């Protein structure tokens, strides 16, 4: 589905490498987290995926299309891209038109558009706001409008750059649950996040990027235990994994508080602790 081979990238010939010899394969239906410090090259890597940036060397192919030769507007039919700041894309007078913008650009059939816009709006809880002016909405609502306009393209791949920043926990969970259900319907999700709890809750695979190189790439549970790599990338494991690691191999597979509680109960109770 996505195949990156020996990808290197620099902004111009004199600049240092932003991405340094990256090779990755991402298959259909995966839910991948891309983590690392600001400036590690995460957003740069994402932008390679839909051809906004072209490789300096190496190649990126999406569904067999080489991003170096295919136009971004064409790749937009295969890969949906949600930027960090919703204000960077919203410009229409109504929420409806905003969601419609991408659909018109990718030349979808007119009669299908209306139904699709209403369905997507329903999914994101925007039904009542379709006629509102997006500039009067709250930050969280604007983020959902931006997501809706990307989802409307119904691409197989969805790329999300920090979709939950600046939102409260409830809004964050709402968005992540929608993304999760899309993943369950078979969409491939690639997401940048700084919130390790979101990563541990939703992503199956985690890639750690540091100074433009892939530092770790494995199942989330395994990667988040690599304290040294995470430390290098300026990250800290979620609290429960930090806690579990203090006890050596005892709580080896623990990820969630529920896992941990179960493990503690199973070792503590036979030991004769008062119940």
């Amino acid at each position, binding site marked *: 589905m996505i195949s990156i081979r020996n990808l290197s990238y620099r902004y111009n010939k004199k600049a240092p490498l932003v991405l340094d010899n990256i090779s990755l394969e991402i298959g259909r239906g995966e839910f991948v987290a891309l983590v690392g410090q600001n400036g590690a090259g995460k957003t740069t890597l994402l932008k390679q995926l839909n051809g*906004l940036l072209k490789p300096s060397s190496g190649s990126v192919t999406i569904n067999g299309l080489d991003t170096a030769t295919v136009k971004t507007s064409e790749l937009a039919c295969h890969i949906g891209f949600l*930027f960090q700041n919703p204000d960077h894309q919203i*410009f229409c007078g109504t929420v409806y038109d905003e969601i419609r*913008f991408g659909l018109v650009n990718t030349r979808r059939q007119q009669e299908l558009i209306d139904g699709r816009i209403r369905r997507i709006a329903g999914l994101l809880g925007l039904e009542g706001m379709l006629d509102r002016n997006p500039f009067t909405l709250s930050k969280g609502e604007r983020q959902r409008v931006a997501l809706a306009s990307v989802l409307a393209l119904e691409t197989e791949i969805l790329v999300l750059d920090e979709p939950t920043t600046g939102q409260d926990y409830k809004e964050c969970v709402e968005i992540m649950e929608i993304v999760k259900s899309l993943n369950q319907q078979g969409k491939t999700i690639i997401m940048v996040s700084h919130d390790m709890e979101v990563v541990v809750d939703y992503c199956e695979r985690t890639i750690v990027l540091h100074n433009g190189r892939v530092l770790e790439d494995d199942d989330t549970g395994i990667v988040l235990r690599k304290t040294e790599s995470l430390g290098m990338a300026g990250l800290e494991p979620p609290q429960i994994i930090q806690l579990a690691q203090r006890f050596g191999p005892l709580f080896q597979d623990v990820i969630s508080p529920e896992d941990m509680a179960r493990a503690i109960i199973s070792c503590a109770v036979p030991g004769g602790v008062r119940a």
Partner: protein
Amino acid sequence: MKQMLEYVHGNSLIHRLNPLTKLIFAVVTCVACFIGSNHLFLLGILLFTIIIAGASGILGRAAGVYKALFILGLFLMLFQLLFTPQGRILFYILPGVPVTDIGLGFSSLLMLRMMAALAPLSLMLMLTPMNELLTAMTHNLKVPYRYAFAVVTALRFIPAFSREMDQIMQAQRSRGHETDTRNPIKKIRVIIPMCIPLLISSVRKVETMAISLETRGFCTGPRSCRKKLGFTLFDILAIILVMAALPVSIIIG
């Protein structure tokens, strides 16, 4: 934004001059350029600015400015050349469009004057740190601080907004937006998805900025200044030198 005139850091004698000296240099040479209608005089001033750029070690960066001025000047010169039928015909650039001696003389004067009048201002901006210019403007020239601050704010935001503009264009391209069209009416429609987001995200910053300034006592009364800008002997010499250009320009006429 490579076209912007940004301060180029350095520690040359010219860098260390009082900003007012540099401002006087920019204004006086400009005035002299319009008084003196002599090719050699204008060429001399132009050469003088190049020497200053070299002496302060920013010739490399200044070259871009000179290039831009040259292109603009050349354009102006060619244009003027076409519309000056007076004088002796030297040759024809196009059939029926003659080039005359007066035309050539005047249009080259126009070009030199444009370049020589503008280069000092550009140099001044490249050689003066923004906060020093601000101090000189508000403390010595008594420009109200709030208005000088507006200018500084605008200039400070230009690089940040350029980065945002990049993001915006990429965000719209990711949604399949295409920008290539030749029809001027369609061009307006094409640029709107870029103009509106930039303006919206910039004006949204205004409120926080205003609050941040209010909570730090912006414009609550008289203002002190951490660095005092003094006039050195070299400043005085430089001002005398620059002022000398005025009588010279008047004599030459």
